[in-house]
């Protein structure tokens, strides 16, 4: 049994990080120059880490499978980034952000990490502003905020609907500066395919040069993974097409532990599936729920007429609409957290009230917001606020200024104009709270192997609040890892660079080569993609928005059968030593099979409902999630053992500062 030590510093919660920083072993500047760090992944987490570590003087090698760091999936984040600045004077504080995050995560995260996150959140905004991130501003020139789901303060900073893009470009530019200074060696189009351990510590990686297809070895004193989340195990998700779990999973195969893999976030507002060829789902930012009202018709006959095209949503009278979130959760209304909103949408669709052909869609309606804003504008400009045509026109302008680009995305995809007809939305896989188990230092159970950003499990418990992933990625990269890595590296100041000629590197490279060539040699009849789609559907059906023991057992068996077929019947065209996207996909899908199985194991063992994990057997009479704090207030960190049953290691969660309550948004 691996003993999990979270290495949480002693002392009162609010002092832990300060004390830690003043006592952690430092590495002197002259020694930093001798220490090499590999950073895999250059999204928000990886790029900010690589840049900050290089600024400190470490020698950094950074890797991405993308053609440029600027393409990482972080680029797609829309809504915003949280920080406890309290610029709005609405009662926000570090403690409140901490509390909201722990509560929002349904009490399944580590207090100390979350508090640290809330503390450094304020520095992130400053850093990004200094880099030139064009955040939205008020008339007076100060930074603007908006609210996101699950909280009652306005602490979200944003750059139109492209916050992730602007933050990533900021981090990318900081990284580019270090590349130009010679402090970072950048390896684009290089995919890490294994971690190399020397004497039990992570000392390098094997990567495939995706242009030449050749395998290459890289050594360093330690390795950092900022390789993102694994939502694409479901095939259809809001993630970019190439997101995958392989870097993290290869670490698991080398002894790292996978924590809470079944905690996946399903985002309530995405454009619904329209056909079997569909390749991805598009998110409509949560910020839309600030102003959009979610509803379905009350009467089945209206639902039928809508599906048959006999009625339009705008034909349904006000009293015949069920604004079910406002009805069920009067305190938070349309701004309940994501897990709650998603399940409520599923519920009304399960009742048969879904509003498109497939029955899997609800409305998100801006009519009232348009009229409300329009009235206010008319008032402010001394115009006739009883003229509804004028009011609608003015209101449309306001809504356009706030969400224009999202409305445009929606119209491009669906061909519908959301200013005049409500959007149709449905929940989709979006984010993974689970990830590599890390301690307070962000170090996995493999010494010298760190995990940051979405790739680790650390801060969001069983459900992530909106605008908190960008915050976490940048907190880890800019402000946490640069300190905590010193804890490991300070012991290595006399360790010379490692040679990639070591036996360990040679063996790892051979193993990777064998793995890839065996996939190429199957030469079966089915495409990688066809398997991936089937795997995704299977997980969605048995380990998706709601789960039960029987389904999970059945699902696991079906998954095993499919995996067996994969290794007999997949067809991977082309060769190893060339640019070969199909081979890349084939290796990633192979890892998704194993991860998918572990997700089902995890979901089956967790006999409670919490956050994104809803087990049908454990719900209140009103259908709300029923947590079991007595038996499940812990992190499940799984040791994967290929053909044998995985072993669970538990990190008990100790709550000294917040009281565990039933999460209520009523």
């Amino acid at each position, binding site marked *: 049994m691996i003993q999990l030590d979270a290495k949480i510093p002693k002392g009162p919660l609010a002092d832990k990080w300060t004390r830690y920083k003043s006592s952690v072993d430092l590495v002197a500047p002259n020694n930093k120059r001798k220490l090499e760090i590999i950073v895999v992944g250059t999204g928000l987490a990886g790029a*900010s880490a690589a840049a900050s570590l290089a*600024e400190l003087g470490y020698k950094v090698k950074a890797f991405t499978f*993308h*053609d*440029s760091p*600027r*393409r990482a*999936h972080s*680029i*797609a984040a829309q809504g915003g980034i949280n920080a406890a600045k309290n610029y709005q004077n609405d009662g926000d504080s570090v403690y409140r952000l901490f509390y909201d995050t722990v509560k929002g995560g349904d009490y399944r995260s580590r207090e100390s990490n979350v508090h640290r996150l809330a503390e450094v959140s304020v*520095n992130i905004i*400053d*850093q990004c*502003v*200094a*880099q*030139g991130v*064009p*955040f*939205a*501003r008020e*008339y*007076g*020139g100060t930074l603007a905020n908006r609210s996101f789901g699950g909280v009652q303060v306005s602490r979200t900073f944003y*750059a139109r609907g*492209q916050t992730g*893009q*602007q933050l990533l*470009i900021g981090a*990318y*530019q*900081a990284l*580019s*500066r270090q590349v*130009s200074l010679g402090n970072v060696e*950048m390896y*684009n189009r290089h995919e890490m395919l294994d971690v190399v351990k020397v004497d039990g510590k992570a000392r390098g990686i094997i990567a495939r040069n995706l242009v030449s297809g050749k395998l290459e070895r890289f050594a360093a004193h330690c390795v950092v993974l900022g390789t993102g989340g694994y939502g694409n195990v479901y095939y259809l998700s809001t993630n*970019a*097409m190439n997101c995958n779990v392989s870097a993290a999973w290869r670490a698991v195969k080398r002894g790292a532990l996978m924590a809470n893999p079944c905690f996946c976030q399903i985002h309530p507002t995405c454009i619904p599936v*329209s*056909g079997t*060829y*569909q*390749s*991805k789902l*598009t998110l409509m930012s949560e910020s839309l729920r600030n102003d959009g009202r979610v509803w379905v018709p009350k009467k089945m006959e209206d639902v039928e007429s809508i599906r048959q095209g006999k009625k339009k949503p705008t034909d349904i009278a006000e009293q015949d609409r069920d604004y079910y979130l406002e009805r069920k959760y009067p305190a938070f209304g349309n701004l309940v957290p994501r897990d709650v909103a998603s399940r409520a949408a599923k519920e009304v669709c399960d009742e048969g009230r879904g509003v498109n052909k497939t029955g899997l869609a609800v409305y998100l309606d801006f009519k009232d917001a348009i009229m409300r804003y329009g009235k206010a504008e008319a008032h402010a400009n001394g115009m006739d606020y009883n003229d509804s045509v004028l009011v609608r026109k003015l209101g449309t302008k306001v809504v356009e200024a706030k969400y224009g680009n999202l409305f445009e*995305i929606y119209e*491009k*995809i669906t*061909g519908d104009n959301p200013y005049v007809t409500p959007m149709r939305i449905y929940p989709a896989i979006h984010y993974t709270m689970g990830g590599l188990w890390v301690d307070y230092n962000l170090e996995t159970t493999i010494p010298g192997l760190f995990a940051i950003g979405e790739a680790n499990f650390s801060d969001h418990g069983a459900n992530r609040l909106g605008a908190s992933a960008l915050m976490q990625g940048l907190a880890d990269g*800019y*402000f946490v890892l640069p300190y905590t890595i010193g804890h490991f590296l300070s012991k290595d100041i006399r360790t010379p660079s490692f040679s990639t000629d070591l036996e360990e590197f040679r063996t790892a490279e051979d193993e990777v080569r064998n793995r890839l060539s065996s996939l190429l040699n199957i030469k079966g009849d089915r*495409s990688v993609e*066809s398997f991936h789609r089937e795997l995704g559907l299977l997980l969605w059906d048995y380990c998706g928005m709601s789960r039960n023991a029987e389904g999970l057992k059945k699902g696991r068996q079906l998954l095993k059968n499919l995996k067996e077929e994969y290794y007999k019947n997949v*067809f991977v*065209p*082309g060769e190893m030593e*060339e*640019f070969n*996207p199909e081979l890349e996909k084939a290796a990633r899908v192979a890892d998704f099979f194993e991860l998918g199985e572990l997700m089902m194991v995890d979901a089956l063992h967790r006999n409670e409902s919490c956050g994104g994990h809803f087990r049908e057997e454990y719900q209140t009479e009103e259908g709300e999630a029923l947590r079991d704090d007595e038996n499940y207030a812990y992190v499940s960190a799984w040791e994967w053992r290929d053909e044998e049953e995985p072993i669970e290691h538990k990190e008990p969660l100790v709550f000294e500062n917040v009281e565990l309550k039933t999460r209520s948004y009523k």
Partner: protein
Amino acid sequence: MKLKLKIWRQKNSDTKGGFHNYTVEATPEMSFLEMLDVLNQQLIEDKEEPVAFEHDCREGICGTCSMVINGQPHGPMALTTTCQLHMRHYKDGDTIVIEPFRANAFPVIKDLVVDRESFDRIIQAGGFVSVSTGQAPDGNSILIEQDVAREAFDAASCIGCGACVAACPNASAMLFTSAKATHLGYLPQGKVEQAKRVRRMVAQMDKEGFGNCSNTYACEAECPKGISVEYIAKMNRDYFSAMVGSED
């Protein structure tokens, strides 16, 4: 709908490429890339090599997708990337010609995939603010007028796709480079090093083999993010004032 596709196939940068013909069955709801997915599935089932093309976010923000469709980078729709293009804009029997972005500074890697690292090197030359982690003052200590923030944002919304280069008869990278220079130069945080930035970025652009700007403005017309050619004029002004009397 049934479509005829003429697609550029090229094994790698050392070999010569050429057009190949295919037919594919599509539906109006599909995106353009999903239509290519369907073609690739077909090819794989026939044990042929699928067409290599680049894509990732499929929602118009990462800048990865890059192809010229019937002579236009990112296809016929204004302000739309290839991944946002939907097949409802085509009709049964149409022929579609698909090629990679073409420019000396964007060598072909395979089929429709090109190497755009030259863009990274332009940014590395100066497309940043020289501020290290931890050095920043409080965010609200730098007040920025709404209009300035808006202008900076407009320039910053470039996705680095390279369509401007592909559209330009001289394969110039002026639109891309000037968007970055404008984004940073507008803001008080970025103004400080603007002269040096512009000088270095322009020098790098030339070194990469991008052509000169001859004011044809094809770039603006094809840019999926509506980046304005005014930035080019602005950068030129910054460039000339930077060249007067300074060196580095």
